[in-house]
């Protein structure tokens, strides 16, 4: 059984490369309420390291990041 994460907003980062995914994520998070969850899909394998690093430097929370075949899906919770 997998735990479903409910997201408040979804963005598509497929085909985008560094540094655009973090830019789009930061813009989306900025427009969300604290406690909101952002869901994103990407194809750049770089995000597997970049998103956890971005979350660490901004103090937000990474709920999940998973590679599903070629697609990478992640959930970030805005914490402040």
């Amino acid at each position, binding site marked *: 059984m997998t735990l479903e994460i409910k997201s408040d907003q979804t963005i598509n980062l497929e085909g985008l490369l560094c540094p655009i995914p*973090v*830019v789009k*994520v930061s813009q989306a998070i900025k427009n969300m309420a604290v406690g909101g969850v952002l869901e994103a899909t990407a194809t750049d394998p770089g995000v597997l390291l970049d998103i956890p690093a*971005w979350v660490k*430097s901004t103090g937000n929370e990474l709920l999940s990041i998973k590679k599903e075949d070629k697609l990478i899906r992640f959930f970030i919770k805005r914490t402040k």
Partner: protein
Amino acid sequence: MKDGNGVTLVVLSGDMDKVMAAFNIAIGSAAAGKNSAMFFTFWGLKAIQKGNLTGKSFFARMMGLLNRGGINRIGPSRFNFGGIGRWMFKQMMNAHRITPLEELRKTAIELGVKFMPCQMSMEVMEIRREDLIDEVGEPCGVATMLEEAFNSGATFFI
């Protein structure tokens, strides 16, 4: 300067690849909510020039012609072959859907990256404030750049 752990970049190079790396770092820092400042000096000024011909004296005009600025005119640091390399790089970047340099610069501006042009190198090469894009700050010197650097978590020289 409000944050204390952003980045300061000294952009001396005017090559497409190096300028691209510089904008990338500045954008990454800004996207993490940190302060970012870029100090453009010597060849780096080309990245923030409008692209018109510059200079008044004979030497400066010659330099303005041979070393013409403008973000879409700069070539890679290797394999430029008089502009063929630049064209090739643009095709390759396009094929891989890499954000073009001008778009990167726009993103940096939108994210609030501070652009500081070097007064001294502008003087030497006879580049005027009006030869630079409107978004740059006032031309300044080493003390202003260092004030940013002292307040940053990291400083890069590119």
